[in-house]
């Protein structure tokens, strides 16, 4: 089984559409969130499905990971500039929520903490199973990106889905108000630490620039 760890807002739907042809039953469901249900039939699920593309998989419980890992061939993690990701994710919610509060809530629930996430997963499973890709590489050349993923996963490359990739970049950026500045600065420091930690653990340069946050 191939498990997409995350992140959300990193072209997971586009990638799923381009990989789902390997599902013998023609799976059409992307966000199953199966690993968030009571862990009673995890092994059966892993044996009968080839893909799981739930964007919250990065945060599944450690006991679940231990149970399914023997049945998982690869995990896919796509990383995106945390500021871009925040703006994109925010567009799904009430954008009247102050940017500092929203960003901080994403940090508290670890979604932007790439360093902590990869540190945890490297402890939980064989790091060689985790394939890490940059969202920026996908934007630069999606055909090359897809070819690279399918090659690493040893799966056939189908004709690319004609669905256009919705880039949804930082168009909805709002200049923070004065009272937000201090908290945003704190967020910026945390994010910088997380990026440095991620790069140190994986030896993968992210090329992220979080200066847009302030």
């Amino acid at each position: 089984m191939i498990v997409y760890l995350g992140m959300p807002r990193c072209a997971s739907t586009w990638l799923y559409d381009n990989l789902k042809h390997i599902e013998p039953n023609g799976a059409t469901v992307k966000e199953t969130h199966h690993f968030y249900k009571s862990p009673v039939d995890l092994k059966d699920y892993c044996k009968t499905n080839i893909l799981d593309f739930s964007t919250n998989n990065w945060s599944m419980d450690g006991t679940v990971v231990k149970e399914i890992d023997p049945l998982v061939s690869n995990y896919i993690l796509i990383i995106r500039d945390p500021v871009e990701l925040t703006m994109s994710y925010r567009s799904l919610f009430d954008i009247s929520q102050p940017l500092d509060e929203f960003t901080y809530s994403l940090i508290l629930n670890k979604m932007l903490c790439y360093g902590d996430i990869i540190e945890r997963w490297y402890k939980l499973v064989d790091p060689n199973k985790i394939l890490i890709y940059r969202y920026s590489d996908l934007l630069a050349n999606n055909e090359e990106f897809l070819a690279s993923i399918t090659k690493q996963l040893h799966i056939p490359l189908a004709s690319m889905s004609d669905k256009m990739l919705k880039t949804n970049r930082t168009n909805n950026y709002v200049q923070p108000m004065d009272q937000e500045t201090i908290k945003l600065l704190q967020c910026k420091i945390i994010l910088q630490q997380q990026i440095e930690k991620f790069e140190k653990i994986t030896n993968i340069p992210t090329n992220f620039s979080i200066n847009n946050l302030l």
Partner: protein
Amino acid sequence: MNFQIFLRKNNLPSAIIAIELLKDEHMIHYDHFSMIENEIKKTFAIEPSVYDQYTLKISRHELDLYQTDKMIHDSHVIVDKIVLDDFWTIDDKNHWSKTIYDPEYVAHLKDKEVTWELSKDLHNNILYFNGSLDYKISIPIRGMFFK
């Protein structure tokens, strides 16, 4: 799933602490110990068979301290942080606790003519000498943090 509980005290020679994990009325885990060190980490693990909500209760019932001249602020224990599943952190940035005061403790404070309103400060990380800090822990964990 692992629970790591980081406790600290300052001016007490020791503290008697109980840690319980409850699901409804059922005890999943229980530990009872004397804390001599100023800082200590207690860990335990459970294997949840179903995803549900649990209550983590950290409590003290040190009734002897009523008879001492210890100020209530001198005699507390601080729960610095709780780390769940080696990943999720509950600390002073995100209080999930609820302070439960023993009625006897409240009466004691009234006798001491303490003026602050206890009910206004229920969500903190301070464990007084007769009462508990209760944490609602939902598994899977991330749901607790996601707003």
